[in-house]
Structure formats: C-alpha cells, structure tokens
C-alpha cells in the first residue's frame, strides 16, 4: 500500500455460541447493530459516508446483499450504496482491504466496513431430489399428471442438508474443516494433549481479559429477547474450564484415531463487528485521532486440505510486501480455528525447512512468541462468527496495542478453501 488506511474506530457485539443468547438475531440485525453504533460514536455526518461494505459467509436467503440491508436497517441515509464481500473466514478483513483499495483509487472518501455472521440462522436445505420433485409437481397441470409425480415420491427426499455443515466443507477436497485440522495434526505430529493444553490457555486468557474489563471499549452490549436482558460479554469463555474436562471429550471428526474435539476447536458463533475507515490524510484533515492504521495486507493460497496453514503463507507475503520482520510485531492475533492449526502454524513459522519447501524463502518466517499471541484468548474460547472474525481480530490488535502502549501488530487467519490473510497494523 502506498498510504496507510486510518481505522478511525472499531467495535463489535458480544459473541455468543450458535443457538445461544443471539440465536434470534439475524445476521443483518447484528450488522445493523454494530453499524448504527459506529455511526453514533463518531463525529462524521452520515451523509458523508460513501459506501458500506460488509463481509458475510452464510449470506442469509432473506437478506440478499446483506450489506445493503444492514445500511438501511441501521438508519443510514438511503442514498449510501452498499455491497457484500465474501472471502470465507477472511470476509471481515476483505471488507477492510477492499475499502482501502476503493479509497486509494479515489473512489470513496469514508467507508463503513464490517463483518457479520449468525451461524444460528443458517438453514437446513432440501436436497436436490426433493427440489426436483417440487419442480415437477409445479409443472404438472392435470390431476393425472400430478398423481403420477406424487407416486414418485420417496421418503429419502425429506432428508435435509445441514447448511452449516455444508458451508464448512471444502467442495474440492470434500473435507470438512475439522478434517483439515486432523491433516495438520498428522503432518506436524501434534498430540491431543498439546491441543487441549492450548485450548485451556485460550479459555484462561479470555476469562482473565473479561474479568479485568480489557474488552470494555471493544464490546457494545446488545439487548436480547424482547429487550428484557442485555448481553454484555462474550458468552463463550468458561471460567471453570479444566484440562480434565477437555481430556474427556471424544474426537469429533475422526471418531477412532482423531485428536480434534469440540473442546479444542472453535464453536459455531453469532456476532458482528464494524470499523470506520478513511485515508490517513483525511483523518488528519478532520483532526481525528484514529484507533490505528492498516499499513499493509496480503492474501495467499495453498492446498484446500491444508487450509489451516494459511497464516504462515499470508504472513510470509505480508512481510515481503511491507519489508517487515516477525520481530516487529508486538501483538499478534492468529485466529484459532483449531488448536492443532494454531500449533501447526507455530511450527511452520519457526521452520527453515518449511519456509524453503513451501514458501520459496531462504529463511524461516519467524518465531511466533506465545506470550504475544492471542493474549486475550481466541476463537476457541470466544468463538468464531466466520464473517465477522476478520474485523474482530483487526480491531482487537489495535485496541490491545493501545492498551499496552505498543505500536505494531499482526492480524492473520486461515481461510476455508485453502487461503490465508494477514494485516500489518499500526497505532502511531
């Protein structure tokens, strides 16, 4: 990037496990909630906003181009256009880098970007046979024709496709995301114990952060139900999480020889996050004090079945693009899709052999210091609302840098289908 993108402000909703506190709030309502708050908090005339860009993975059937629905529901002036971006788990980050491209191309001045996901509301689908049955039924005109179609009905037509399961399955390799984590566990020989140990750490860090109010500036409490309650914190982190309880869980994806359990993987989650974006120049002209800046971004891709390694691929490219090194980073958010996947990245980042074989580098990418990595816990504890996570970790890196008085951070994540995304973020 030639210039830095100012992230003027960033906030998010509390995250709740799918089927939990936010189960009745649709993806568009979650997005509208964070959007109206980002507008309310900032001294920017809503009429000056040029575009609303939201990332979303499951794309609700009743809210096509969910970004536009969000903009309207949030009460933004109706003449502000909006569109939705989709790069799977990186959709939230894509909304920001797309906005950056638009702003630096001179096509927009101020953009609201964000990510939203309601995994509670991903529907069950009718299978192809039933769909075709209904189509034939509609085409049948005479009672006799209808009768004939009806006779062809089979019970198996009613077996549904679970939308969320299908969404988490890579159509090329045919592997569900959990299976790709098992691939990495084998490639890097990561034991069940090491995975559980990491999951426990995630919970402990998230619980401590919530207790010390470290997320107070980041989370806007959201009313739930008929406004009789208020969800103030992420509901995922478990204060009483123990190593024993984790050890008791059965492997979920590979029942017999697997290591990945629901305890050391991130849960299905609902939530949304939003940021207010403009060029650094524009922010300075308006005498604003932005939360921070995006200095560089990178996306990279690899084999779908090893998608969990996306961060090392993307970060390698990011470092090249920005002429930076791993030791520059003072805070790192590497999204925790699976404990096995995080550990695999730790190994790959620090391996010269891996760098030579896969990344075309002479030296390793760099050491991933666990004390700097996901210091407030990650998706294993707080959850992973797929479309929103990219925005969440971007905002969180900046807020954590500010809280600790540091300057440079990395936000990176793996992307289903075999991609990785990485942001170089700065505060000053």
């Amino acid at each position: 990037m030639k210039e830095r993108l100012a992230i003027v402000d960033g906030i998010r909703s509390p995250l709740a496990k799918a089927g939990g506190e936010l189960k009745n709030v649709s993806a568009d309502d979650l997005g509208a909630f964070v959007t109206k708050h980002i507008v309310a908090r900032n001294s920017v005339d809503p009429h000056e906003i040029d575009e609303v860009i939201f990332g979303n993975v499951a794309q609700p059937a009743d809210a096509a181009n969910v970004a536009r629905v969000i903009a309207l529901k949030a009460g933004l002036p109706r003449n502000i256009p909006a569109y939705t971006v989709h790069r799977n788990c990186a959709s939230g980050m894509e909304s920001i880098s797309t906005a950056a491209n638009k702003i630096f191309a001179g096509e927009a001045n101020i953009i609201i970007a964000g990510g939203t996901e309601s995994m509670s509301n991903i529907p069950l689908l009718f299978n192809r046979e039933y769909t075709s049955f209904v189509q034939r039924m509609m085409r049948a005109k005479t009672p006799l024709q209808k009768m004939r179609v009806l006779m062809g009905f089979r019970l198996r037509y009613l077996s549904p496709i679970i939308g969320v399961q299908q969404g988490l399955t890579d159509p090329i390799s045919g592997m569900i995301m959990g299976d790709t984590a098992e691939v990495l566990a084998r490639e890097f020989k990561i034991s069940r114990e090491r995975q559980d140990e990491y999951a426990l750490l995630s919970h402990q860090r998230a619980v401590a952060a919530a207790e010390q109010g470290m997320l107070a500036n980041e989370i806007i409490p959201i009313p739930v139900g008929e406004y009789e309650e208020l969800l103030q914190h992420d509901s995922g982190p478990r204060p009483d999480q123990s190593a024993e309880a984790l050890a008791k869980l059965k492997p979920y994806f590979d029942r017999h020889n697997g290591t990945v359990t629901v305890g050391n993987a991130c849960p299905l989650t609902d939530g949304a996050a939003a940021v207010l974006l403009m060029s650094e120049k524009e922010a300075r002209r308006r005498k604003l004090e932005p939360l921070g800046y995006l200095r560089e971004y990178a996306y990279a891709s690899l084999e779908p079945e090893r998608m969990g390694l996306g961060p090392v691929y993307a970060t390698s490219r990011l470092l090249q693009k920005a002429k930076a090194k791993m030791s520059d980073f003072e805070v790192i958010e590497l999204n925790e899709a699976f404990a096995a996947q995080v550990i695999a990245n730790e190994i790959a980042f620090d391996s010269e052999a891996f760098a030579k074989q896969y990344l075309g580098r002479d030296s390793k990418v760099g050491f991933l210091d666990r004390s700097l990595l996901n210091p407030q816990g990650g998706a294993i504890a707080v959850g992973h609302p797929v479309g929103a996570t990219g925005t969440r970790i971007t905002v969180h890196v900046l807020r954590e840098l500010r809280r600790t008085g540091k300057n440079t951070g990395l936000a990176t994540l793996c992307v289903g289908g075999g991609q990785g995304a990485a942001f170089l973020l700065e505060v000053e």
Partner: protein
Amino acid sequence: MMNSAWRLTTHENGIADLVLDLPGEKVNKLSTAVMEELRELMGQLGGMAEQIDVLLVSSGKTGNFIAGADITEIRSITTSAEAEAKAELGQELLNHWVELPFLTVCLIDGAALGGGLEFALACDYRVVTDSPKTKLGFPEVNLGIIPGFGGTQRLPHLVGKIDALDLILSGKQISGKQAYRIGLADAHLPQAFADEKTREFCLGLLTPEGSAAAHTHRKKARRKSLLLECTPVGRIIIYKLTEVELRKKTGGHYPAPFAALRVIRKTHRMGMRAGLKVERHEFGRLAPKQISKNLVELFFTGEALKHHPIMQGEGAPGAIERAAVLGAGVMGGRIAWLFSNKQIPVALRDISWEAVQQGCRAAHSVYKEVAKRKSLSASEISNAMQLITGTTEAGALGWPDIVIEAVVEDLETKKKVLSETEQLVEPDTILATNTSSLSVAAMSAALSRPEQFVGLHFFNPPNRMPLVELVRGPDTSDDTLRTVALLARKLGKTPILVKDCPGFLVNRVLMPYLTESVALLEEGADLRHLDQVFKQYGMPMGPIRLLDEIGIDVGSKVAGILATAYGERMQISPFFEGVTQHRDMLGKKTKAGFYLYDKKKPRPNPAMQELLPHTETPAAKFDDEQLKLRPLLLMVNEAARCIEEEVVESPAFLDMALIMGTGFPAFRGGLLKWADTYGIEQVYTTLGAYAEKYGPRFAPTPLIEELARKESGFYGL
C-alpha cells in the same frame, strides 16, 4: 357565471366532465352557495340526456374531493328548525341529483368526507384511487351531529348495516382500498392512471358486461354481512352489540353516535323519503345542542393550532433527520419511540447500560401495545427498534439535528447535561428540555447557544397524549421554535405555545385539582365516590386514580415545586407530603397507592386509609356537587390566572391543552368552556362562598370578578 365553482365540459364520446373547484379555497366544501350553484346547473343538466351518457364528477383540488359541509354554517345553527331546513335543502338537492337522466360517476382522489361522501353516495358509481390522501368517512359524530344529507340512508343501503354502522358511528376515515373492499367504491385505481382508467370504466358502464361487473362486485362485497342482516334476530344482535360497544367507548357522554344508530335502526325498510325525514329530525335535534357547539368550537381551535403562526416563516424549516434523547427512563424511552415510529434514527443515552436497556424496553413495549390494535409484523417492530441506538457515551449521539433532554427533574443536573451536550454536538443542533416544572430560562442561561434551546414538554404517556407544551426560552429564535413545532406535528403531536412559568400551563392548572381532591379525602370523602363523580363528569379516570397512575412521589414532588413557586394557594398538606415516605405505596408502579392493584379491579388500599387523618368523618356529608365543584372551580381559578398572566394565548387554546394533555372531556368543550356554560356569575359566587368556608385559595381572581361583573365569559374575551 364569473366565479363558478362547477365546471361542465361535454365530449364527443358521451362522457361529460363536471369538475368542482371552489375558487380561492384549498379544499372543496359543500357550502350553501356551492349547492345553490349546483341546483341551477342541474336544471341545465336535466335537459342534456341527448349529449351525455355518463357524467363524471371530479375535483379540481389535489388531494381533496370534497371535505364536507361548511362547518362555519353548522356553527351558526341555533335552532332545530333551522338545522332541519338546512338538512332538507341538501337532501332535496341530492334526491334530484339521483334522478338525472344519465349515469353519474365520481372520481374520488383525495378526501371525501361528510357531506362530500353523501354527494358521492348520490352518484350511481364511485371510483377511488390508491393515493394515501384518498380517505372516505363520516366525521359528523366528532362534531356532535350525524350525517344529514342522506348518508344514514344511502350508505347502509349500499354496503350493508355492519359496515355502515362502523363508518358512521366511529367517524373514522377509510382508505380507497378499504372502500372498495366493503363495496362503497366500484373501482379502485392507481392514481397515476386515474384519469384514463376512470374513463375506461365509464365507457365500460355503457356496455352490458361492464355494468354487470360493477354490480357483481357490489353484491360480493355485501355477501359477508347478509346472513346477519337479513333476519330480524340477526339485526337485533347487530344493534345490541353496537350499542354495548358504543356505551363502552363513549361512557354515554356523546349522544350523536347513539342518534345515528337510532336512525339506522328506525329507518330499516322505510322508504327513502320517510327515512330522510327521520334523519333530518335527529340532525335537527343534535345540531343546536351545547355538546355539538363545544365539539365544533374545538374543531376550529384545532384548525387554528394547525395553522398557527409559529409554523409559518421565511425559507425552508430545519429538517430533523436524526435525533437523540438523553435519559432512558420510561419517558425517554417512549419519546425515542415517537421518533423511531416516524422512521427517524434516534440515539437514547443514559449513564448505565441497565438504564439504556430499560429505555429500549419501554419503547419496545409501546410497539407491542400498538401491535395489539393494528397489524404490525415482528419484523416491522424489529426494524423500527433498530433505529433506536442505546448508548452510555455522551459523545455517541449520532449526528443529531435535535437533542431532547429527559433526565431527572433537577435543575443542576439538567444544566450540566445540556451544556455538556452543547459542546459535543454540531453548532446547528437544537437542544430541547422535556422538563415538566423547571425554568427553561434558568437552563438557557447555562448555554452558549440559547437561541437554539427550547422547552418541549411531552405528556405521559407520550405515545398516547397528543399535546406538547412548547416553551419559548428568553433567547429562543423563531427558526428554532418553528423547526420544533413542525417536528412535534410530524411526531403526531399538537404543539401549544406556553409561557415559561413553574408547571407551565397544564400541570399548573391540573395540580389544584389533585391537591384539592386529596384535601377532600383528608376531610373524609370516600375515594371511590370522588373518583366516580369525576368519571361521570367525563374524565378518563378520577383524580385519585390519576394520582396513582402518575405516581404519588412524582405528584408530590411537582406539587412541592408549584407550592414553592405560587405560595399559599398551592400549599400541599403534610399528609400528602408524608405519604411519599412509604416507598411501597407510590401508586400503580408499586402495585399499591390509594388503591391496590394486585387484582384485576383496583380496590381501596386499607393501609392508605390508615394514614388519612380524619377517617372518622362520615362520608355522607359530601354530596356529588360539592365533590365535583371544589376541585373543578379551583382549577378554573388557576386557569383564569393563566389567562391573566398570558401563560397561553387564549381560553380556547387552554381548553384544548387540557383536553389533549389530561384527557379533560371534549364534549364539555374544555375547562373554561365548562365554566362559561356553568355560568361565570355562578362560578364567581361559589368561589367566594368556598373562600369563606375552605380558605383563601378559592378567592376568585380579578379576571373572574371582572367577567362576572360584565356578565361575559372566558370565550367573550
């Protein structure tokens, strides 16, 4: 004719156009002059059967067909005979109209009300548009009268008794689509193609298929009600149910809808001429009565308020696109609802998230309440609620064009909140206070842009009470006042300009009524008896129930402020002050006050009876008249002071404010109208007598004395 209201054009194809376009007026009215002109025109039309196949009547005014009879003419009616004669004139005219030797069709694209709808009913066919301005109805009952140009005869005949009773007795206005559904209209057309489609419809009527189709629709629309209506038992059921419903709704205080019901019932199977006679007889009975006079007066007061000079001004008024409310109490939450309900994004701020949530909940419960009465889908509610942004940050108000402060009723707090907000918002943002009793001037002094500050006092519950008191501060600019007055209108409220005095107008006048009622209790009056007397008078609830509703702590606090401001005459008793110590007996919100609210029907609270000082006095010594007059006359006395001090512009505005702010019975015409009707001398002497007996608070004000001497009245001012 020079300034002709009717314009006739004939065409080759047999369709003639008759356009009503009253010169120099915004809307068409069926005044005597307009009807006289029509009579002359009809003489000519009668001989035109050769040239005309279909006469198409329409209006030259946008958004209006005919708004009704000229209400100034109704106002001037003094005797039954005069009223009957007026009705007969219209009836006769429309009877002739029906007999014209060709088809008559009217195109209703706008309001067709009262006499206007009766004229439409006398046409052979009615075509309506889908414009939101197209409204059909009989608002006569709202003026204490009934339709007098045949509406009670032709409407039931056309659409059946159930729908006709519904329309005529309620005074409600229905859309073009609804009119088509009940068979009142024969075609429902898109406004954009109204002209072409209406002409097509007219030409169609000349073919057997076209006219058959129109009649089939009418028959179909009536089918659902036929089963009940065609049997004597069915009709009795309809009449009985209607009457029960009516009694519940009017409390028996409004005779007009009962009269309309009587007419429709009596004229069943009567011929048109005999029916019309019954109709004009009832019309004649009602029109000269005081109730009708009161309601007509209120209509004109309403019109005057609608076109009040504060709404006029140079240039475009400031638009309110976004708003913010400070203080998320029940009041703040409901004010936020007002905005969200009109699709205006609004921030709702309080210091804690719990308070914010309560405020949002208050707004949400209004939507739930509304959803019980009219169709409102869950997603409509959720989308509207999404427009309310709850926040705890002073700076997160979302670029508002207006900020309304509804925080705790404490001057220092309000000053602090307002001046803090003034720093954070844009320089052109208007600030308003919803204070009910504190000085707007005092708050204004704390601001650096006092010209953009105004008092905007909503009444509880603001979603239902139509009044807002608009208080001009010492520096408030005309533009600010106009913008806020127009906003109040947009929110569905009627703003009334009042002076910046403690309690402003309504609370100041209402408080003596409440304190005197409490005084009566202390003297041994029975609270149910007292409340009953005022329910009979026409109040929506008695004064003691009202206190429970307001909250005894709130009532006592406001009473204290007014006592400090106005001295002895507003002094509250130690008992009233003492009650607030009992935190579990603060009124309905604590489920106990003067009454207990634990069961369906409220009953007197024995614990409160214990606290009353003079429970041993026998309740019988209070007669109804005394119970009624003491609180009422004390109110009249304070109202007279408000007129003297020019707190409000006119007695009529004062009356309207009390009706819209407290539910004072409209059929009484308002408090001062009641005083005039009761007799100003009588008011003066009774006040004098009460002053001797109960204390100087009853001493009549100089204005009342003067009016009594001049044998005039408040409305003679």
